[in-house]
Each structure stands twice: as C-alpha cells, then as structure tokens.
C-alpha cells in the first residue's frame, strides 16, 4: 500500500506545486474534506478556503486557495485553481487593503455595486489574511 500520493496544483500561471504528500485537506463544496493515499476517483468543486497538505517528510504546509476544482485518479490529486498561494508568499498588506475595499463597497448602498462580486472579493481577502497567520 502506498503511504503517499502525488499532489499537483495548477493555476493559469503555471504549476505551483508538484510532489509526494501523505495527506491533503481541501475546502470542498460542502465543507473541508481530506484526501489520503488510495482515495477513490473523485471530481469535486472547491470553495475559497484553506488548503493543507503534509509532505512526505512530515512537514505541513498551508495555502490560500481561490476556488476551483480537484480531480483524484490513480493515487494522484490534481488541483486546478485560479490562484493558490503558499502562506509564506501571501502579501498581507495587499490582502488587508482588498478587504477594506470590499467592505467599503458593501457598505455604500449604490445601485451599481455588484454585491456578489464584492462579497467574493471580501471572502478571498479574509481567506488570505487567515492563511497568512499560519506561516
């Protein structure tokens, strides 16, 4: 039995990560779920949220995931996201200003404000701020 599986994280800007991991926790469509070696084949949508995985050598890493989907097949997990940042790489200042911008937009009761979009931006910013603290 394999005790590891391959994890590949792909974004429109290229491959962010590829390596052997022991486990991976993902923000699934209805809540967090974990993928372990020899998981059944699965396609799942992913929400904005934290991604956590344990390296072959036991090191744990966190990423801020910006929605997308994942595919499990033949003991390999592929994550396709529009953006995925390691906790260490998050620009906290940018995230904070994005949060303020989104909150401001939600507060102003203008008719031409795209509420779902502002909420999405807020969720992304909050997620990144939270993950950044896990570095």
């Amino acid at each position, binding site marked *: 039995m394999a005790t590891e599986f391959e994890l590949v994280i792909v974004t429109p800007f290229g491959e962010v990560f590829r390596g052997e991991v022991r486990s991976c926790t993902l923000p699934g469509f209805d809540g967090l779920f974990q993928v372990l070696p020899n998981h*059944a084949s699965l*396609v799942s949508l992913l929400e904005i949220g934290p991604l956590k995985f344990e390296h072959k050598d036991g090191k744990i890493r966190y990423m801020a995931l910006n929605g997308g989907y994942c595919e499990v097949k033949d003991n390999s997990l592929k994550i396709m996201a529009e953006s995925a940042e390691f906790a260490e790489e998050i620009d906290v200042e940018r995230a904070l200003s994005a949060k303020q911008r989104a909150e401001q937009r939600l507060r102003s009761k203008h008719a031409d404000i795209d509420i779902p979009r502002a909420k999405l931006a807020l969720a992304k910013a909050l997620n990144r701020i939270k993950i950044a603290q896990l570095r």
Partner: protein
Amino acid sequence: MANLREIRKRIDSVRSTQQITKAMKMVAAAKLRKAQENILAFRPYSYELRELIAHLTALIGYTAEIPLMVKRPVQKVLLVVVTADRGLCGAFNHNIIRRAYERVQEYPETEVELFLVGRKGLEFFKRRPVTINTTKINFFNDLNFNDAVEITNTILNLYQNQYFDRVEFIYNEFKSAVQQNVIVEQFLPFVPDEELVKSPEQVDFLYEPDKQTILNEVIPRHLRVQTWRILLESNAAEQGARMTAMENATDNAEEMVHQLTIFYNRSRQAAITTEISEIVSGAEALKES
C-alpha cells in the same frame, strides 16, 4: 547643388530615428518573450479544464440545464474586437479592423454590437456607423489575469441578461514572431471540443456536487481562461508585429543613411572640384594679364 549642411542634418535626423526604431524593436522583443512565457504557463491549466468539460458534457449530453450551452435563434450578436492600444506595429490593427468591419456586413439581418478591446479599435470605430456597446482600452501595457476576468464577466452579463444570442471574438493569433493570423472565434454559446473526450472504458468518478453544477461552475472558469489566452495571443502577436515593423524601419533607415552619405560625399567632391577649378581659372587669368 544641394546644400551640404542640409544633407548632414538629414543624415543626423535619419540616424536618430533609426536609434528610436532600434530601441522599440528591442523593447518589443523583450515583451514578446514575456508574453510567450505567459502563454506556455497557462496551457496545462487550460488543457485540464477543457478535458473535464468535454468529459462531463459527453456524460450529460445536450441539456437546457447548462444555460451557457443553449443555442438561441441568433438575433443579436456581440463582436469582441481585440486590437492593440498602440500603433507602429505594421498591419496588425488594420487587419483586425478590416476583418471586423467585414464581419459586421456578414450579418445583414442581425443586430450587431461591438465590444472594443484595445484603443486602436475604438479610434477607428467611433467615427463609423456601428453600435459600440462596451470598450476596454489602455491596459495591454500592464496586462494581467484580472483584465481577462473583467472582460469575461462583462460578456457573461450581457449574454445572460438575454441581450445577446451569440458572442464572437476577432483577434490576432500568434503564429510566430513574423506571422499573425486574424481569427474569428465563437465564444458563446459554449461548444465543448469533442475530440478531447476519452474512451468510455475509464474509471467511474464520484462527483461532488452533481455533474451539472460542476459544469455550470467550470464553464465560466474555462471562458475566463479563453479570454486570457486571446489577450495573451493578441499581445504576443502585437509585439511580434511591432518587432518586425521596427526591424524593417531600422533597415530602411540604414539604407537611407547609406544613400545620403554617398550623395553627401558626391556633393562635397563636386563642391571641391568647382572651387579648385575656380581657383585655377582665376590663377590662369592672373598669369595672362
């Protein structure tokens, strides 16, 4: 006899123009390299998305549950015309504008509106009898993925509010640094690429949530990547076209400097000869007297 000083001035001015075109060529080459890197980087992501969509649509079949795939009778068309923000890149903008203009004529019975991406398209079409719906200009210099997201969202909004029945992109495809092809591509309604469907003997997947929800979520993502691809292609093609145009301009300037230098030397020779013959004839005249 041309004034020697004027020729000198002319040569200098051609030289300095040549320096500018040379610099522009170098800048375009650097930007082209960056654009090509971006194109390479997004390919795996795009391929995976297309494969998943093709696979899911093959499983579900044609259904009205996927609004973005529903074909409606075409009464209103949105043409997204991608030009550059800047000129000095050969026939790049001209080719697109001409093709877009033709495309409008190809829909005689249908209402056509334009979404102009890039300033050069706007400069041309604002003085023409066409309906401009939306524009997005002056962003290619600092192109990033959010621009693609913004354009796609605008298109999706227009489309989903039952306003348009068909969306097409007209853009320059990047073939190589010296070759660009004008492409007209259907964007919406969405058509999956069938050749990507894998053989049926593969494993059963669990789907979380159901296939339709996944498709409805993934297709807009795919469209964003498509827009991103088109912007990158157009940007790379623009830099390639500019590079070629500036190279030609540099060569022409070189040729011109060469011609002018010969002309300058000849004129100088002629001037000296005249002067000498004047002196000699003057001396002759003195001797005789």
